């Protein structure tokens, strides 16, 4: 589904990604862990199509097609979803208008008719329940005045409405208390299927107690320095990231 080969990217002349290789297949959950500043969020943004990094080498393929030449909206319509670390507040654009526009763009891409107003409201209610989001929030402007937890829940809510094939959740767990974390994780787990894949980007092991990954990758200084099964997360939890530094300096 997603194939990344030797991806290198610079931001303002500084190399942030120094040759990433990663393959994600349908049904898999990958966790990408690593200390702050290792390039996790840059990787997520590059896949979603934010044009802030200069790609200097490598390729990113989605269903065998070159993702890097597509605008972000096309990547989204093909099934990629980025759960933002810092969801953006957009005053004056209502949640309903925003999500209906987005959903209809997805439907148009698939050759389907726009969703009717009543079907859409039904869908909103049903998906809001899934992530236990206060339905009052859907009547407001996008993320405006939402608490940190509400914003994160809203990301999962949008994911539930748009039903992506590949969801990249960037630090969705940061700033969440245990209850909120559990709700978010439950939402993600309910949306898991053999056709879909998820990339969880996280700093802490905590989220992985609730969403069990098939693979764990450690990103450090722009490179994936270790890949293994879910046990790697526990190892990291015990040992911290210090050993990484020593290991990579030794290289």
């Amino acid at each position: 589904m997603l194939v990344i080969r030797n991806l290198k990217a610079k931001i303002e002349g500084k190399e942030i990604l120094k040759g990433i290789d990663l393959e994600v297949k349908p049904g898999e959950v990958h966790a990408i862990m690593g200390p702050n500043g290792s390039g996790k969020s840059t990787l997520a943004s590059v896949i979603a199509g934010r044009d802030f990094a200069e790609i200097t080498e490598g390729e990113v393929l989605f269903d065998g097609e070159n993702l890097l030449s597509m605008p972000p909206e096309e990547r989204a319509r093909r099934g990629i979803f980025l759960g933002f670390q810092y969801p953006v507040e957009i005053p004056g654009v209502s949640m309903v208008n925003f999500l209906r526009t987005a959903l209809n763009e997805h439907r148009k891409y698939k050759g389907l008719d726009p969703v009717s107003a009543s079907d859409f409201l039904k869908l909103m209610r049903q998906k809001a329940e899934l992530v236990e989001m206060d339905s009052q929030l859907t009547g407001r402007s996008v993320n405006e005045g939402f608490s940190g937890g509400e914003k994160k829940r809203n990301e999962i809510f949008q994911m539930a409405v748009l039903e992506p094939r590949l969801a990249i959740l960037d630090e969705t767990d940061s700033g969440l208390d245990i209850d909120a974390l559990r709700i978010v994780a439950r939402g993600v787990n309910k949306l898991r299927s053999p056709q879909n894949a998820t990339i969880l980007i996280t700093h802490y092991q905590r989220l992985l107690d609730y969403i069990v990954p098939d693979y764990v990758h450690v990103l450090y200084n722009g490179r994936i320095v270790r890949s293994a099964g879910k046990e790697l997360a526990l190892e990291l939890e015990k040992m911290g990231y210090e050993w990484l530094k020593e290991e990579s300096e030794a290289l």
Partner: protein
Amino acid sequence: MTMETIEKDLLPDEKLTAFYEANNQVILSASSDVLNHHRTKALENFRKLGLPKYRSEDYKYLDVPALFRKEYTNYITPGRIEFQIDDIFRCDVPALDTHYAILLNGFYHDHGGSLLELSNGVIVGSLLEASRRYPELVARHYNRYAGLKEEGLVSLNTLFARDGIFVYVPANTTPDKPIQLINIQMHEIPLLLQYRNLIILEENSTAEIIVCDHTLSPQPFLSNAVTEIYAGAGARLNYTKMQNQHNASALINHRYIYQERESHVNSTAVTLHGGIVRNNLFVRMAGEGGTNISSGLFLTDQGQHVDNFTWVEHAAPHCESRQFFKGILDDFSSGAFSGRIVVKPGAQKTNAYQKNNNLLLTNDARMNTRPQLEIYADDVKCSHGATVGQLDKDAMFYLRSRGIGYEEARFLLMFAFANEVLANIPVVPLRARIADLVNKRLRRELSPCNSCPMHCC
């Protein structure tokens, strides 16, 4: 009687005064004593003040003499124009049934009587006719507020004004429907129009007024229009203005609002389209406890220029004023905002606020904003803020990352920006209708105004 008959090498100011002197008998004899009473003084003032100079303090970004240098026929006598109101005008505001008055090229267009007099004493109609039928009432207010700030263009209007719309709401009265004033410009030759509106709300009265400016033929028009509004003690007025003119038009619009004790005036001006638009707004809070809310929104593209100038004067204590102006500028259009809050000595406990936000969609669009405070009292709360920016890149990416295309994402953000001003329009169906027009305008689907079948108000 056209401007061309006056020598061409004169300055525009001299041309105008020479034209007046050559035609003053025509103007005086066709007018009323009430309106004529002010002309001698107006001529004297105009000679002294002249047209505002380009780059002068209040006209830094608009060259008024250049506008007057173009050839226009000074339209002081209404010509016969075949005009079938039912063919051309269709009110498209759903659920908005109004009493309406039409100005055709600055003269009241008679559609069954030149004054509509309702049983509750409300009068809507021709200013000229009102000044003949109710000379004392009109004289008590006419040209009393337009002098709040000395302005050559206003003296010029007073010098030439022949007609306009008159609205009178007696004390403790509310008209049964909103009042709609429609300015239509339509002629085979370019015209200079100087109409004059007078709106009087006596104490504790309430009114909802909607004003639309339209051009219905492609000729250039230059308007120098004055509207005086008097809000008596405890009166409440909602005033919504829509400007939709073609690119060859120039509209200079002066709105003077005089507010007595505990009056409440909420006015919004939406400039959808227009070649050159200058909106001057002067407010005087003359009595204690009054509230003034003034907002404006303009949308420009190509070479259009919209200039908003405000002057809100707190002359009495315990008043509140809020100004909220926004502009969205596309292509190589330009805009200006100059807003002043003046707090006079003794106007304690004033609460005055001003905000001006602008969105530039291209690198060639230009906006100048000048917020100004002038405070002569020590116990007041005044604030102002101005921004000129571009569409938020983070918000754009957020929308696009959900599958919304670039154009649509841009449109959603522009509309959200504009809609904040529209939220100030209290009448819901009118607000919805204007929102729809703004929506069309932003999508560039609004029909050019000279072929506009008047679907927009």
